[in-house]
């Protein structure tokens, strides 16, 4: 097996899920990153954490790494699909400005979790990233290890329609996939999450299978759509009120709630294709306003270059 060193310590058993997380935290802490805890509200991706979205803006140096639980209600499979979850974990790293040796730093992080890059086929395969709801885009790759996509690697160019100067680099590791790879298991539910000295193991299934079943049922069948439609409007109004008070951080918190509410409605199948576009636009315009407000009231710079399209587009 691959994970004989680093994360797995002295034992001959492969790294557990929590070993992988702790190894990544330790590694990126050594690179000078602030190790944060997950954003405490529902988000669809590690990128949505304020520590990435908002902190990507402005001239200051910023380095962080954190685990983020991500909610994707439409991806629920009632716990029956070995590869798909409506709640899963990313490990997110953001470094601004992007270090010149970031690719090597990344390969070093693989070593830290027991994957020796020299013994595998590690590829950087073109994958341009774009988030319509955040008005953000960047260029980069999906990183493949022996044909498996394990990390999204992106140089952010714009967030909220604003140019990122300096440019941050984002790494988003798919923790379940990486651990499945390291442990050699074919179902996410067979991942060993923790292992005691007495040999007692807890699997991903022990921890999360019920969660997947129950939330899949809730997301697809139970969610009260009238309530959710009203909730979307209420959250949007609250975000506006915060923006009016020049409070971009709480405003953004409500925007994230709008996002999740929209995703729940989507999973209930009650958003038609035309409405979908309209909802995405509503979220995007709020996200952009949050970014503008953040630049103005937190960073302290007038948001002059909105939608400034670099020559890169």
């Amino acid at each position, binding site marked *: 097996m*691959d994970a004989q060193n680093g994360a797995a310590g002295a034992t001959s058993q492969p790294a557990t899920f929590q070993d992988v997380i702790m190894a990544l935290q330790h590694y990126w802490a050594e690179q000078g990153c602030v190790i944060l805890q997950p954003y405490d509200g529902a988000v669809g991706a590690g990128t949505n954490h304020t520590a990435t979205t908002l902190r990507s803006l402005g001239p200051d140096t910023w380095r962080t790494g954190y685990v983020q639980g991500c909610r994707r209600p439409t991806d629920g499979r009632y716990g029956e*699909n*070995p*590869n798909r979850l409506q709640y899963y974990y990313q490990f997110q790293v953001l470094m601004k*400005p*992007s*270090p*010149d040796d970031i*690719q090597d730093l990344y*390969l070093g992080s693989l070593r830290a979790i027991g994957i020796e*890059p*020299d*013994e*595998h*086929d*590690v*590829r*950087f*395969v*073109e994958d*341009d990233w774009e988030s319509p709801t955040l008005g953000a885009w*960047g*260029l980069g*790759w999906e990183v493949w*290890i*022996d*044909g*498996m996509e394990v990390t999204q690697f992106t*140089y952010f*160019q714009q967030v909220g329609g604003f140019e990122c*100067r*300096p*440019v941050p*680099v984002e790494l988003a590791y798919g923790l379940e996939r990486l651990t499945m*790879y390291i442990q*050699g298991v*074919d179902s996410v539910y067979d991942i060993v999450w923790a292992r005691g000295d007495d040999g007692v193991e807890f699997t991903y299934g022990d921890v999360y299978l019920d969660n997947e079943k129950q939330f899949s049922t809730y997301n697809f069948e139970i969610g009260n759509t009238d309530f959710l439609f009203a909730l979307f409007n209420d959250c949007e109004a609250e975000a506006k009120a915060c923006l009016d008070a020049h409070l971009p951080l709480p405003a953004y918190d409500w925007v994230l709630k709008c996002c999740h509410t929209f995703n729940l409605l989507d999973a209930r*199948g009650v958003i*038609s*294709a*035309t409405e979908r576009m309209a909802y995405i636009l509503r979220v995007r315009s709020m996200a952009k306003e949050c970014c503008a407000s953040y630049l103005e009231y937190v960073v302290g710079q007038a948001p002059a270059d909105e939608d400034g399209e*670099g*020559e*890169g*587009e």
Partner: protein
Amino acid sequence: MATKTLAFEIGTEEIPAFDLDSATKQLAEMAPAAFDAARIPYERIDVLTSPRRLIVMAYGVAEQTEALAEEHKGPAAKIAFDEDGNPTKAAEGFARGKGIDVSELQRREVDGTEYVFACTNVPATPVASLLPDVLAGLIPAIKWPRSCRWASYDEYFVRPVRWIVAMLDADVLPVSFAGAQAGNQTMGHRVLAPGFHQVPTADKLPDVLRGIGVLPSQEEREQAIRAGVADIEADLGLEVRLPQKTLLEVTNLSECPQPVCGTFDEEFLQVPEEIIVDAMLMHQRYFPLYDKQGALTNRFIITSNGDPKHAAAIVDGNERVVRARLDDAKFFYEEDLKNPLESYVEKLDEVVFQEQLGTVKAKAERLRALGAHLAADAGLDAAQAEQVQRACYLCKADLVTNAVIEFTSVQGIMGSYYATASGEDEAVAHAIGQHYRPRFAGDDLPDTQVGQLVALADKLDTICGLFAVGQGPTGTSDPFALRRACLGIVSMLDAGLPVSLGSAIDQALDGYAGVDFDRKAVRDQIEEFFTTRTKVLLRDAGCSADAVDAVLAAGVTEPAVVMAHTRALEQARSSSPEVMGNLATAYARANNLRDPQLGDEVDQALLTAPEQALADAIEQVQGSVSEALSADDYPQALAQLASLRAPVDRFFEEVMVMDEDQRVRENRLKLLNRFVGVFANVADFGTLAKG
């Protein structure tokens, strides 16, 4: 004179495969042009590239440029100097334009007039002093579809530039870009020879790279892949297909490609082959292996960029990815099979066809109506007509199945599998499977008439709908691939599909009754669109433009008819060029002289012998041309017209049309009116005469 070698390497993070191919081609043109513009002599320039580097090698580079003495003739002296002998604005401007002081202008007489001359001398310049700017200029000149900034730099490139090698023989040239300073150190293969490696002299760069695990050109890497693939084929007695696009991609996804062979569990071969191939080629860039009979096997080729020592672990990892993917595919396929294909049509109501044109469900219903019309027009029997309508209604249903959502390239094909599994008629399933054909120029047409009618209905509905909402193609923008759809329809009609495009367009537009548009204008645009594409198709097939125009001028619009007539006309012209040429000339002459107001009631009593001969010939040909046309025998119509050549030539030779006697003159003009009239429904021979 001694010459030197230049090596220039832009070292980057991984460049996207197709962007790299484009940059390689751009540099091969830009680099020599930049050397020429700077007047740097060289013998040969090679461009070498890999995913992490773009290299210009220049051999036989002279140490200095040649001195250049030039003399430029300026304005006449009397314009360049005023009466007092002072230089005018004209003289100053000329001198400035040539980069010299006005006092340096010389005066000399040419053919009796005195002019000013500017004589400039560009001295020989050391190439080493010119190269840094030339090389630095190449970096931002490469065009990328998308480029990015990184760290705190303002420069843009496709991905971050991390190192530069710029050497003239052993000397490093000062070039920098976004924080990277040129040196004599290149970077090895990530795994096989990581880190920096010294380049002793410029000419050694390619070999240094080969020694550190980098095959520095697309050709070398493609060769390595082909050789490795051939070995595997020979070993296993199997065969591989290398689609050009995927081959280029894998060629540019590795610096040292090594094909290795993987296996998946045979039970997955129960999944439709198309999904397996899609998962392999599109998602993982693997090449599936087939046996000698062409059947898919459970072996596939991975193009690894890793260390051959660890090939077993790399194959094992890739096999696990394939297993997960095929597991997904199998799961999706089996899930999809739990419901009949028809049940998915309802769900098409959630898929937007086009914002103003409603959902795909609405499209399926329009297709059914259009299919009924087409089946009737093609004269199908009731059973076949029902097959067309059924296939039209079901052909989009697979868009909402799991397998197609996950593996988009198998749309249509999955529908066909699901139709069969749902107990649909075999002809219906077959038509569904082929209704996206032809997918590109030269692709096979659906091989049944039912299939062709479904394919035509689908494409025509899309064209008519998008034109109705003003979304027809413009310039290079054709987001709905309407041109391809149009060519597909024309190809099927030309291959003999017996339906009228004109009435099909009417029927398709009827389907958009709920959309607000100017029906006449839109219909004209669509007809024009088909005519233009038909012309392009004919031109591409080698037909001359005037032949197409001559046929179109006769008022035919059905693409199949236009194509058949144009080909017949071209055939007649090439088999008897003299007859057709003369006939065209005579037609043009008659057409210029004729006076339509006089009508064509010829007074037989006034005719002389040659006029009578022409009149008789016209009389006879007129009947046989319209007979030939109604029998759809266009070559016969042309042959009949050709028989007019002798009498009309004789007429123009022996008869003076513009006789002084008005009655005679007008009678002759009436005869010419009749002559021109015979051609009306065949082709405008006047167009042919212009060439």
